[in-house]
């Protein structure tokens, strides 16, 4: 598709075009805590495309932390149950999505839409999403997307991708809707050297990982190998498992973790809500089966379930890639210091204690 240039001075106009037709989400700096959150924005003025990678992944826009998926009421007189579907899903624009997080969304698509069953609640959100991704022209300390093949440039999945070229962004439409938006804004076409300049920016970014992305180095492919061939010692899993505090954080922050829980809650005012909330395979009750049989009782088994899901070859076949997209978030929130990269290191080096 034709590429365009979006002058930085034109960004507000670009954002207001989006906020006119979508609920707009994007990276914002919290005024008190300084945390960067990917969050709903009343208008474009709070969105910071250059903010560091947000603490939360944008997955919650399509997979909310807490969501009513339907409600029902029992009508005593007529002895019937009335089901009230939720149709509050409004179109959303996700602006400033980084390549890792976009890759996470694509994993979600394969999980919720690409298998035998299609998850209609996810689909309701997903159909109405407009994605503006950004190329990371420099990595953050926690990043390792180059090891997981998910950045710093998003190859697919966006409606529009932005790459910072200095005075302006290179705007690449990735869908018909993206192309239409560019046309509507009357953006200038990018010159013939645009693709080269973008590739240079991406190459420069990759070359900066060594010096800037210092928190995490992960030789993912090596770990994938060992996991797939079963060459991981039990003691290594025990070493990892005993450090897990079973908090669930790794799943909650992960852009590609999709475990959920369903609960029916009776309202005091009458009627019942069916809720979907986040869940995690690190919890014992998650895999509970009838009777006493729980296939994942010991905590080290539950831990290795997560790493199998993220790294093993069979799982990769499902997502068409490894489940870990290299965002580094689980490393920062883990009370047990067993984020993905430490686990990969433990597996690679057979660390047992």
């Amino acid at each position, binding site marked *: 598709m034709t590429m365009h240039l979006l002058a930085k001075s034109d960004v507000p106009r670009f954002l207001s075009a989006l906020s006119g037709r979508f609920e707009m989400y994007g990276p*914002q700096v*919290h*005024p*008190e*805590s*300084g*945390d960067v*959150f990917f*969050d*709903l*924005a009343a208008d474009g003025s*709070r969105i910071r495309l250059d903010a560091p990678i947000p*603490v*939360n992944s944008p997955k*919650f826009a399509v997979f*909310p*932390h*807490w969501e009513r998926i339907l409600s029902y009421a029992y009508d005593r007189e007529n002895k019937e149950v009335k089901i009230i579907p939720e149709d509050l899903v409004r179109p959303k624009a996700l602006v400033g999505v980084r390549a890792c997080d976009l890759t996470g969304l694509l994993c979600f698509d394969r999980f919720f839409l690409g298998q035998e069953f299609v998850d209609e609640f996810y689909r309701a959100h997903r159909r109405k999403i407009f994605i503006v991704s950004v190329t990371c022209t420099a990595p953050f300390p926690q990043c390792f997307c180059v090891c997981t093949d998910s950045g710093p440039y998003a190859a697919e999945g966006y409606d529009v991708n932005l790459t910072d070229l200095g005075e302006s962004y290179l705007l690449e439409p990735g869908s018909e809707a993206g192309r239409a938006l560019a046309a509507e804004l009357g953006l200038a076409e990018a010159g013939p050297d645009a693709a080269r300049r973008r590739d240079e920016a991406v190459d420069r970014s990759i070359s900066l990982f060594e010096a800037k992305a210092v928190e995490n180095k992960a030789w993912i492919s090596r770990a994938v190998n060992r996991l797939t061939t079963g060459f991981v010692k039990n003691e290594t899993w025990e070493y990892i498992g*005993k*450090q897990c*505090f*079973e*908090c*669930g*954080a790794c799943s*909650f922050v992960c852009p590609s973790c999709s475990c959920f*829980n369903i*609960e029916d*809650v*009776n*309202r*005091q005012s009458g009627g019942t809500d069916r809720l979907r*909330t986040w*869940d995690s395979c690190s*919890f*014992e*009750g998650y895999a*509970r089966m009838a009777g*006493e049989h*729980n296939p994942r009782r010991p905590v080290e088994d539950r831990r290795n379930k997560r790493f199998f899901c993220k790294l093993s070859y069979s799982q990769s076949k499902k997502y068409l890639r490894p489940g870990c997209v290299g965002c580094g978030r689980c490393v*920062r*929130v*883990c*009370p*047990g*210091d067993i984020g993905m990269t430490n686990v990969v290191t433990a597996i690679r080096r057979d660390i047992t204690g």
Partner: protein
Amino acid sequence: MSYQTGVCNFCGTGCGHLMQVENGAVRGVFPSSTHPVGRGRLCVRGWHIHELLNTEERISRPQLRTDGALIPVFWDRALDEVALRLAGFSGGEIGFWASPRSSNEDIYSMVRLARAVFRSPNISLQSDAWYRSTVEVLREGSGRPGAYGSISDIRNADFILVVGTDLTRQNPIIASDIHFAARRGADVVTLSTRKTQMSRLSGTHLQNRPGTKKMVLAALAKVLLEADRGGASSAAVSIEGSDAFLKEMEGVNLDRIEQDCGLPLPTLRETALRLKAAPKAVFVFSTGISGLNRETVALIWNLFLVAGKAGRDGCAILPATGVSNLAGANDCGAGPGVLPGSGPLPDEAAAARFKGLWGAEAEIGPGRPVEDLLADASSKIKALVVCDHDPEINLYADRLKSLEYVVYLGSYANPFTDLAQAVLPTTTFVEADGTYTNTERRIQLNRRKVDPRFESRPAWEIFSALAARRGAFWPFRSSADVQEEITRAVPAYAGATHAALEAAFGGIQWPLGAERPFGPFRFVEAGLVSGPAPAGDEFPLRLMAGKSYYYWHQNNIMKKTFIPRREYNALLLLYPQGLVDVHPDDAAALGLRDKRPVRVVSARGAMTPLVRVTDEVPPGTVYAPYFVGAMIPDFLVPHAGAVERGEDAVIPVRLEKV
């Protein structure tokens, strides 16, 4: 932005979170990566606090008991009735039972209502007497009634001693800090009878016999004294209180230590010397139900002194509070023997302060804890005002039933309302402004983020309204006004107004501003340390009672979440009758099998839980995590004394195969 800053309200670690608020309702929660305590982490409870806040199992309306049933009424009617009925009792006849989950403003207002309006000095916090004595030990020893040092000291510590309870369960994020310290090379020593996750994450586990914790602490101190003896400086002797301390230490026989505690003397000696050599040492211990008693805490403090850590940079003693505002509730006077911010009563300066603040009529003398009044058949207690009851063990069911008037204030549906004549719905911590004080004296403001659900009102507002009905017109129009009075009533809180706290993300540790110097440091009397009673033939095993992970205060609160409730139920599914941990050797000797029932018999009671065979307990020891209701009346109530004495208490039992 839909994410609003706040503080987790479960345990006393005080992790900072951001609550996701959409369309006037809480929809999610996230850790704050910049918060000084949590630094990006929450535990399983903190990650599900939005589930609790959304529960439909709330007390929704004010209710009065009429013809045996609780009937919803309008607020005015309920307040009129409660004020009138309480006025019919003398001060000594009313008990006030405060909750360590309440905000400082709510606690302070309750204390003021009790003492200045109904003239009752009988105020206590449910189930946390040991924190009070912990604070008194620290006051006597360091001159300041609170944690010595900060949680952040863990980060730079060379040596960390963890005493007692599994911190990874009680205060997981403090435990996480210790784990990180261990990974960067700190020398972490855990003293506990059971193997726990905390002990597994420690470089050294001092696995003592049950009931010998004090002996081990005393032995460590004695080793240091002996190492020091003859040294010209003999530092300990120059510290105030050393005479009594040295005398206590004379009673410690190091030669018998291995026999009594099950720990080899060389191990203890080595550990003590490592402690002595470490420039920065931090001690952490738990308070609350599995908390330590006064003597044990005194020994911990004395060890800190002997090791030369008091007054040194980077050294700390942290009594980890198991409930969110346990520390603040104590600071704000929720105890029969203190006024807000005072020392033990009588306290002249405090008396003058409160005569000024509350009027000459206020009752400023010492009272008795509500538990004592309920337990004492001859006490005059007739009425009770209770906030957010979440007891471990309801010991006084019969006495409670016989009271003439019980008022219950709370947010969540609670079986305690069955005993109440009046029930008043209160707001949760996201529905009203309030301050909370964590383990390390950090005062933090939780802002109101959503409208009060149902008809709930903040407790301070309810107490104000009751006071007004008794002719006392308090100058509070907001909780900020209450906090402003607290800053004058509690000297250590001077300056901690809502405005100041609002401006300081992550809160402020008291005392504010110029740090009043500690000291003088002194040894605190710990009493003579004796060995454990030998196990008899009839009851050869020692039983300890304690927490399990998802179990929390009979789970009244956890049962209103989804995920923590499910995890608790998973444990129930495996062990529906409750469980006791038995060492494989004991199990083999007695022919016991995993997940099979066993009869646990003591001199005073019996129960039949299931066996969990595990080497987490040493041979000769049985551990009962009390998460199942039936274990409580059948067995633990008759042993309430032992359970309440905390971790050091053991119950002699025998196991019978069934």
